[in-house]
């Protein structure tokens, strides 16, 4: 049973990461009905910003906790900024054209971000070492191995999910987001600043990606310019399987995906090459069974 516990732990960590990415997709979709495909590359951008901040803090002789703080701060600021600017200059001007145009546009913006990192970050084409600031090592439960840094990051991820949920359901800003998602025109008639709400939502969604990027770096000790592509595809799929526009759906979708991938390896170790095949096959079956996602979109609550 130890091995089951081990797989469960691995899956939990991965699922949290996927869920955080999926949450961003669902937020953007909620307020604007758009799929922002540059989301994964924004995550990568946040991770690189954090890396620079950590290296700067390190050379300034700061302590470990200052470095960690600098990392998260840099990632959140950088991604929130780039998120709002994408909304302001690219998504909002195009919001009356077909939604697919925005998908293509953001995909290309993602490529621009990715290529800039590859070409202009020193040695950016190679994987970059991410400073290991969290306590290394771990404890053995039987044969299952629990990494300390994994536990800490898991807690951070869950806290972030709770925080976003709180912002959306309990704050005035969250109320505005839900109002815009519900009915844009009425919300504007009530005097809400639609563009501002959209920009802030993009900032919030992108900042979650930024934190996820730092978590990724700390957990794997390695980041690379292309890491956002696969995360975006999985995050997008998770958001849809869960039910677009539903925060809980995104999180469930994330865990489902991680669970499927882990399960495939655990059950058929000889056929690991087929594991992505298996995961997406189940996705197709699930989506056929529930055509609007596991947590079906309810008209009364879109976010």
């Amino acid at each position: 049973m130890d091995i089951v516990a081990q797989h469960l732990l691995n899956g939990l960590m991965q699922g949290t990461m996927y869920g955080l990415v999926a949450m961003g997709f669902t937020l953007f979709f909620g307020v604007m009905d758009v799929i922002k495909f540059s989301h994964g590359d924004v995550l990568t951008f946040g991770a690189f910003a954090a890396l620079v901040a950590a290296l700067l803090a390190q050379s300034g002789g700061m302590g470990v906790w200052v470095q960690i703080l600098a990392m998260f701060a840099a990632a959140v600021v950088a991604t929130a900024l780039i998120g709002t600017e994408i909304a302001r200059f690219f998504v909002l001007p195009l919001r009356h054209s077909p939604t697919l145009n925005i998908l293509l546009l953001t995909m290309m913006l993602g490529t621009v971000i990715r290529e800039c990192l590859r070409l202009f970050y020193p040695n950016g084409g190679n994987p970059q070492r991410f400073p290991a600031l969290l306590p290394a090592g771990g404890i053995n439960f039987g044969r299952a191995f629990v990494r300390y840094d994994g536990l800490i990051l898991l807690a951070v991820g869950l806290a972030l999910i709770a925080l976003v949920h709180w912002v959306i359901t309990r704050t005035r800003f969250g109320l505005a987001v839900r109002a815009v998602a519900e009915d844009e025109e009425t919300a504007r008639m009530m005097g809400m600043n639609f563009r501002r709400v959209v920009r802030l939502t993009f900032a919030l969604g992108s900042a979650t990606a930024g934190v996820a990027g730092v978590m990724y770096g700390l957990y794997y000790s390695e980041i690379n310019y292309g890491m956002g592509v696969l995360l975006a595809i999985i995050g997008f799929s998770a958001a849809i399987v869960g039910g677009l526009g539903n925060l809980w759906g995104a999180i469930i979708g994330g865990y489902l995906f991680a669970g499927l991938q882990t399960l495939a390896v655990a059950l058929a170790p000889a056929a690991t090459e087929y594991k992505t095949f298996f995961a997406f096959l189940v996705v197709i079956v699930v989506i056929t069974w529930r055509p609007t996602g596991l947590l079906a979109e309810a008209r009364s609550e879109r976010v």
Partner: protein
Amino acid sequence: MSSPVKAPVWPVLAGVILCSGMLGAIVAVEDQRLIVAMLLGFAAIWFAARRWGAVAALERSAEQHPGAVGGAILVAALAGIALLHEDNFGFLMISTVLLFASCCIGLTIQLGYAGVSNFGAAGFVGAGAYTAAVLNWLPWMPDLLALIGGGVAAVLVGSLLLLPVLRTRGHYAALTTLAFGIMFGVFLDATPIVGGPQGLKLSGVNLFGWDFSNDIRLGSFLISFYANYVLLSLAIFGVAIFVASRLDRSWVGIWLDTVRLDETACAVFGVNIGFWKILAFTAGNFLAGLAGATYAKMLGFIAPNNFTLSDSLMLVSVVILGGIGNRWGALPATAILVLLPEKLQFIQEYRLLIFAVLVVIILMASPAGLVPRRTRRLDPHLIIGNVGWLTRLVPHARSVPSPQRGEG
């Protein structure tokens, strides 16, 4: 319904001459400075032509004189072949553009007409390509059958997806096809019978003793063997445009529009939503498979990483960039998305960056695509056969899933 004013035929002729001239010039010119200057010039011509209504006039004229369009394009192609005669690379690129455009017209039928998202198009292209490669193992198999077999295989593979595609809509349908595209690539990579990651070799096309791999000799005049493929691709492109325009301009197009725009209303009027979606999905996949089989035969080698998610997204990008729902938009858009990266070779590692920036600029400057969709000129006399009985093959109007926010 019939047109009150007969449009003149000269815009068609002028348009074909101008467009093929531009395409030929882009293909033939290698000098970096000239290319940049030319691209800027063509962009200016294009936007000016759209601004002053020339594109619309061209489209109107083309609609009324389909024969003139076909004839003019054929003459332009032959003239182009004579002019470029030994430029192997140029012909390869022109065939590639035509084949990708054919495939994207298939996507236009799916996405632009019936509103069926397909984010796994590279999977259907790949199904066609791999079928051609596998049929290549049978020495007695005529190549014509292998090419058509590619199309049929894509349809068969697509039929596995019918249920999910029919049950889902919008982004959810996009996910099912996207998932299929990824699964297809993983399957090819992991399965040694179809070559695994190393891919498969194919021989060139040979139609009834006409060997496409030989250079053409007319006396002392030598024409590259790729000219054969240009003609074949042109024929496929012609078939694609013909099918799409017949669908669009007959009553079928109207039904497809209603299916795309309002399924509930559609069901109320007794339109069989499922049937029309299946028809559009199947027709599109057939074109993708056919184009894929021909492309594979032309290249002589295929491997799984030719058919990845990014290739699917590239194909969808063509449809969006060309203008969703406008079949002619596929040609300039493919020319940009296929030729531009190749022409940007001189900036080496920066080319993907510049390419992405250029696409962003085009999208911002022209949000509805290069050739925006126009109101169709319905031709009620255009009968593609009484297809009414076919609709009975599919169970009657499916249940409409829980309402979603409609488009726009």
